[in-house]
């Protein structure tokens, strides 16, 4: 082994090949399938089919509304939690934060099972409130992803800025609106990215809450079950485009630790 000579740079070759084969190639295949028909000929039928069917367009609109509402509810709950915790003088803030995010280490299907039992007890029949239950389920699932980035940005705030605002005569509310809130925007954006996209696609939360409503993710699931790769690929492609637009729109706020990974460790 000692005779083996290589340059450090070459170590990235296996990972580079892996990414090309299993990250880039699947996307190319998706694009190919989205624009071909069963006979393998070029076709825009899937695209036109998606945008001319009231069902699929309705699903897109529904999942958009669901994602917006879920994101807003998560933000309205997570911001006060993160703010109160970060600005408090509790000695071991990080421990409290850990208690808030610990549930996300429990498998999410088990957490939703627990939620389902409670909701059934309260509501009787879950099928009566499909939209409400979807919002509750997704908020319950994704809340830690909203709390963490907001907490991190508020913790990083320079205290002297807040003191300066107070010294210059701003009231606490003015300081919050003019200083704290604008400076915590990067954290809010990270949280929105991490909650919004899963809310459009995580159809298992809906399925488990006995929900018959469809979101974009459910469409992929049902085309997959019907072996309809072409229409399934078109949905995947549309979701990819939404994700791309979202990522580009928020990239100027992006920080190094805004990914799921930053959130989890």
């Amino acid at each position, binding site marked *: 082994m000692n005779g083996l000579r290589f340059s450090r740079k070459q170590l990235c070759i296996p990972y580079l090949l892996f990414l090309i084969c299993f990250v880039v190639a699947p996307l190319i295949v998706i694009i190919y399938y989205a624009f071909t028909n069963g006979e393998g000929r070029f076709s825009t039928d899937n695209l036109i089919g998606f945008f001319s069917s009231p069902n699929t367009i309705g699903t897109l609109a529904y999942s958009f509304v669901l994602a917006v509402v879920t994101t807003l509810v998560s933000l309205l709950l997570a911001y006060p939690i993160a703010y109160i915790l970060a600005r408090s003088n509790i000695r071991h803030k990080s421990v409290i934060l850990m208690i808030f995010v610990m549930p996300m280490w429990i498998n999410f299907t088990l957490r939703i099972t627990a939620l389902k039992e409670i909701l059934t007890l309260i509501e009787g029949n879950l099928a009566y409130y499909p939209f409400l239950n979807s919002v509750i389920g997704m908020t319950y699932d994704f809340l830690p992803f909203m709390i963490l980035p907001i907490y991190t940005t508020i913790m990083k705030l320079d205290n002297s800025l807040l003191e300066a605002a107070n010294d210059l005569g701003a009231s606490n509310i003015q300081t919050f609106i003019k200083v704290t809130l604008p400076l915590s925007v990067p954290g809010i954006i990270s949280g929105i990215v991490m909650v919004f996209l899963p809310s459009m696609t995580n159809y298992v939360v809906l399925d488990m809450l006995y929900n018959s409503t469809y979101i974009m993710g459910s469409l992929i699931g049902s085309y997959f079950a019907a072996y309809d790769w072409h229409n399934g690929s078109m949905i995947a492609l549309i979701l990819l485009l939404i*994700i791309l637009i979202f990522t580009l729109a928020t990239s100027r706020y992006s920080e190094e630790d805004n990914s799921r990974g930053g959130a*989890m460790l």
Partner: protein
Amino acid sequence: MKRRLGYAFLVVMLIVIYLPILILAVYSFTDSANIGMIHGFSVQNYVTLFTKPELSDMIWGTVILALVSAAIATIFGTLGAIGTFYSKKATQNVVNMMNQIPVVNADVVTGFSICILLIVVCNVSKETYIPLVVGHVVLSAPFVYLAVVPKLKQMDSSLYEAALDLGASPVQALSKVVIPQIAPGIISGFALAVTLSLDDYFIASYTKPATFDTISTYVVNATKGSHTEIKTALWALSTIIFLIVIVIALAMNMAGRKKEGNE
């Protein structure tokens, strides 16, 4: 007063978050089939969980899949991070961009696209477990990469060259100098890879063999069925996982304290 109100809000939120899990934990020790009616104390759910082969198979299957895919992801991600870090800027940009795709992508899309490529186009059988393992490595390797890169940035870059000048081979310089320096990043990357694999539903459901189940796919199927014995045994599973998470959190906390004390 204001401060008290704030703390009260935190406490209420914690109760809301933990109530479902705790209620399920209480009921897992009873013989009730539904929440709301308390019957007698029973450990039958735990007995079922550990004695029913299909349940223990799916738990072990999930754990082995998580460890194997995390190990592969850690090797790919770590080597990728080291190699890319010392490459030209252009290479770095390309790898960073490709690495970001699975991170921002929806898991449904990742799972579906890997299924199309491997199973539909390349005709790889799901029964070989290859699509499933590849899927989980795609999901987690980018996070290992992201965990290792900051450690490389912190490392003194002349150490590797010094090792070579002193007569170490590249393999020795890597294993004895570079790897120990970036070990914390590798370990947290591996831990993250394990948790991502354990929590995954979507990639598994599009790529797994028909007879194999992970905890997630099993739980989702069980909620659709009406098998009471299985349903309540899963309450026991949820309680055990909750306890494991508490133990790990406590251990991490203590390790963190110790580190602070040493510094």
